[in-house]
């Protein structure tokens, strides 16, 4: 499901089935040197999470990305967001990010860190194959959360 009115209406009647929230954690780099790479990572994470949503939309709610810059980065915010999502009824909350920062502090957060892959330079079929490969890495994380 996506965070739009149509899907939310369905979520509210089917809460017992749609029990997992996915939150992309997106780092924005606005410096001249970093901007392009940052946008590439954003593009990758958006495409990948949309693909996950398409495959598991009956059980997963893809939240709008949680974005921050170096200066607005705050370790506590995802924790609070997670708490709120839990109290909304999501049993599992999974964060997905390309930012290394989160890969170390994951005792209380379920963070899946993936290195960004520059999809922008790839043609459609290669892109699709890469997304499927990445998905294969993500499925165990989901099934682990679902047992």
């Amino acid at each position, binding site marked *: 499901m996506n965070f739009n009115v149509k899907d939310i209406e*369905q979520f509210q009647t*089917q809460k017992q*089935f*749609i029990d997992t929230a996915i939150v992309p954690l997106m780092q924005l780099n606005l410096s001249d040197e970093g901007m392009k790479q940052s946008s590439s990572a954003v593009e990758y994470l958006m495409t990948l999470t949309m693909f996950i949503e*398409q*495959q*598991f*939309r*009956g*059980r997963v709610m893809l939240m709008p990305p949680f974005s921050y810059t170096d200066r607005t980065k705050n370790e506590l915010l995802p924790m609070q967001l997670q708490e709120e999502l839990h109290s909304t009824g999501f049993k599992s909350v999974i964060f997905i990010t390309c930012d290394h920062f989160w890969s170390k502090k994951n005792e209380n957060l379920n963070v899946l860190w993936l290195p960004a892959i520059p999809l922008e330079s790839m043609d*459609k*079929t290669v892109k*699709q194959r890469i997304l499927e490969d990445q998905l294969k890495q993500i*499925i165990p994380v989901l*099934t682990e959360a679902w047992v």
Partner: protein
Amino acid sequence: MSNNRVTRRQFLTYTITGVGGFMAAGMLMPMVRFAIDPVLQTKAEGNLVLTSQKIADITDVPVKVDFTFEQTDGWYKSDVTEAAWVYHDGNEIVALSPVCKHLGCTVNWEGDPAHANQFFCACHAGRYEKNGKNVKGTPPLGPLDQYEVAEKDGYLMLGKKIANTFS
């Protein structure tokens, strides 16, 4: 200084030209739109999409065939990739939509080792027979949709989604 002031006559002329312009535009716009619209509509959904799947390679074991088309949602155009499970049934080619009829996850052929010869939905353990019929007692309440199929130069084309024809 007084030279720069707009005279009453000038003011009226400007105003009338302006208003006239709007009126003309108001009349012309719909006409232009009607003239152009049918051209835009030829791209509508429901057309056959060519896939990279060779007809000759299709067996009686379902394979996943991806296909991409352009979708317009309001102003937003995007490439959408969808898939179909395709197999031979006698002389016929069957293409099933992988979208689970429970809440829309993507189903996989023999996705659960415990249930050979069935489609499996990992989200809530929904199951379907090979022809798309939902297995009673699992969450889905209806059979998988089908796609219209066609052939072009030996390759598979997929068309509109239709209701399952087996049940």
